[in-house]
């Protein structure tokens, strides 16, 4: 569908943003399939923002699928669950997508096991207090499945003095190629509806809005049909635009509330949770299970058997790509979506809770990108018109090349940038703006840590 036609379905959206080719046609019609177990699963201890989990089983331990193998270290942390019934071979360093070597479990699944998932004692939704639900959410080990990996239970904890009126379920899925949320909404709308009451009870929200982009009207219809009678849940269809799935953008698009600089949606009485996360909670919480697998779009021009797969956490890229088959001239593999995802430097990197997609390109596709030469800024202000946060990427880029980090932060609000990449996408001079901002932010954090 062209952008012009799809825009007729809804008029609510945010200002600025871009329209990258959505490239979702290859996988949007493919049902979710269960993926096989790799002979060795690599399960990192740190798959979320916050402190890494603390291992509670040692090398040589036999574990059951869904069993907690590492505990949360404090509130800003989540436990890790075994993705398969098998043997912990060792606990050693493994490459992670963030470029560090992180400690991980090397788990060898038993080939003959039936791979039954262990269940716990669920909390009763009707009588549980918000604290009990938040603790139960933490025990499932669920983090934001959209990609950022922020612990979901930490989002649900509302600080004293703040209140929430609206729960926003994010089904925008604005990243190109990714269709996991689309498939979840179509196939697991019931799980979404089961998850919502937990989230509403934990946050005290009185209404729920599910936001879906207009390239997924079938999903919106399916959700509308699944809403229980009398439940305060509405489904909104928004025009297609990137980065609508960013929580600040979504809050502005659906509710018309602007999140203040440096603030969170809860400052405007909103909690925003990804639809895939909600469905996963709706599936796990009634059985008190732990997150041990996740749905991932495996796509991109170089993949032969594209699709949406339910993949055990810890499966390495090498195993996934071998199983789906790739073109011979495989060149780049991106974890996450192509706009905000990260290129993998090694195929030994495992998928984690935050990986929403594995996108592979062949030499033919990347050749064009690499030949792009950087030219000086011509002050066309395309980036200014694209930035959804109303920053000035052009000026920030010039300051970045002079290493003027203080001015970037204090005068041009660099820290509000969430690295969506719109500025780099539209830049006719091919200036790697978002890359420069990421370098600057990292340098600033390093300097702060040294103080």
């Amino acid at each position, binding site marked *: 569908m062209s952008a012009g036609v799809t825009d007729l379905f809804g008029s609510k959206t945010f200002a600025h943003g871009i329209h990258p080719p959505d490239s979702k046609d290859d996988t949007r019609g493919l049902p979710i399939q269960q993926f096989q177990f790799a002979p060795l699963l690599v399960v990192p201890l740190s798959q979320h923002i916050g402190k890494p989990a603390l291992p509670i089983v040692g090398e040589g331990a036999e574990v059951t699928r869904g069993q907690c193998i590492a505990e949360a270290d404090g509130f800003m942390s989540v436990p890790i669950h075994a993705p398969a019934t098998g043997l912990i071979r060792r606990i050693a*360093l493994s*490459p992670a*997508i*963030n*470029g*560090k*070597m992180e400690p991980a479990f090397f788990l060898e699944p038993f080939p003959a096991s039936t791979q039954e998932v262990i269940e716990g004692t669920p909390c009763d939704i009707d009588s549980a207090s918000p604290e009990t639900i938040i603790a139960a959410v933490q025990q499932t080990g669920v983090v934001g499945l959209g990609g950022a990996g922020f612990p979901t239970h930490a989002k649900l904890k509302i600080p004293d003095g703040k209140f929430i009126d609206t729960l926003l379920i994010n089904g925008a899925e604005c990243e190109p190629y990714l269709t996991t949320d689309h498939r979840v909404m179509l196939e697991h709308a019931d799980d979404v509806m089961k998850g919502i009451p937990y989230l509403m009870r934990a946050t005290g929200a009185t209404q729920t809005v599910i936001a879906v982009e207009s390239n997924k009207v079938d999903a919106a219809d399916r959700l509308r049909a699944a809403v229980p009678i009398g439940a305060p849940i509405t489904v909104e269809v928004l025009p297609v635009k990137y980065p609508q799935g960013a929580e600040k953008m979504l809050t502005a698009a659906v509710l018309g509330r602007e999140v203040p600089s440096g603030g969170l949606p809860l400052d405007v009485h909103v909690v925003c949770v990804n639809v895939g996360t909600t469905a996963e909670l709706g599936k796990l919480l009634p059985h008190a299970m732990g997150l041990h697998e996740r749905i991932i779009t495996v796509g991109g021009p170089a993949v032969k058997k594209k699709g949406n797969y339910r993949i055990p956490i810890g499966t390495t890229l090498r195993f996934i790509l071998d199983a789906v088959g790739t073109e011979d001239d495989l060149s780049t593999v991106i974890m996450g979506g192509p706009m905000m995802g*990260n*290129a*993998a*430097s*090694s*195929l030994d*990197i495992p998928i984690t809770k935050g990986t929403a997609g594995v996108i592979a390109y062949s030499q033919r596709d*990347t050749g064009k990108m*690499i030949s792009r030469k950087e030219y000086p800024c011509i002050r066309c202000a395309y980036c200014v018109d694209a930035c959804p946060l109303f920053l000035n990427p052009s000026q920030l880029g010039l300051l970045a090349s002079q290493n003027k980090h203080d001015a970037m932060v204090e005068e041009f609000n660099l820290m509000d940038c969430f690295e969506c990449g719109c500025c780099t996408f539209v830049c006719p001079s091919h200036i*790697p703006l978002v*890359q*420069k901002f*990421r*370098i600057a932010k*990292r*340098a600033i954090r390093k300097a702060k840590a040294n103080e």
Partner: protein
Amino acid sequence: MDIAALLTSLAAVGALATVLATLLVVADRWLHVVEDPRIDNVEAMLPHTNCGACGYPGCRAFAEVLVSGVEPPAKCSVSAPPDHARIAAYLGVDVGVQEKRVARLACAGGNNVARNRAHYQGHKSCAAAALVAGGGKSCFWGCLGLADCEVACDFDAIEMSPSQLPVVDEDRCTACGDCVQACPKDLFSIHEVSHRLWVACSSLANGDEVLEECEVGCTACGRCASDAPNLIEMKNGLPVVDYQKGSLSADATQRCPTGAIVWIDETKGIVKGNAAKKVIRQGEMRDTAT
């Protein structure tokens, strides 16, 4: 024109000028900050590089502590000994002794000895490459070779070798620490030039894992530590030299199988031990099989 009006305006402006001039005179007397005139003179004798190697924010701040006698002139690592003597003579203080310090790189993995597992093709900067899954080097700790340190060095003391590894010119290096800040892998550190026994590897991997990635990496065999038990201790799979203890010698490097621990000789440069495997390859190594 009315002469009276002219006189009135002249008188008014004159009175205003007198009042303001008085105010300025009073302000100059009362608000005057007494500053040692020697600070300006000493600052003029400093190199004006504002590099911060002395530990003070710029040459002006260092001039202030020189005049107050807290630090000796030799603490400035940029100016030459005659300049130190000039400042010492001017201030009537001792030149002081400050051992020369230099930046040292804890990696020897140029592209002729260390493998790549991916080709990074983005923005040409180590910092950018490090953000993309740690860069293309097989060794996650190793030098990415995109010359952020060479760009950061204000003294042209760092030059990339043909195998894409930074080489520090000890004479030019002022130990300002800019390269320490620039390196995303934290491979540079500032050391006294007499710390000639040097571990040129940062990999925390052991044994064959290291050799798959890099021919000159430390395999954590521990021979150096057993040859110099008081001096070297193995920590996390790397030898750590305690420079406070005992005198350094090249003995500990002799049995190192890969040449990861080296002796940095004043004239001959980097000297590996006798047992170290020779590196003959000049060109780039082929990639790790993917």
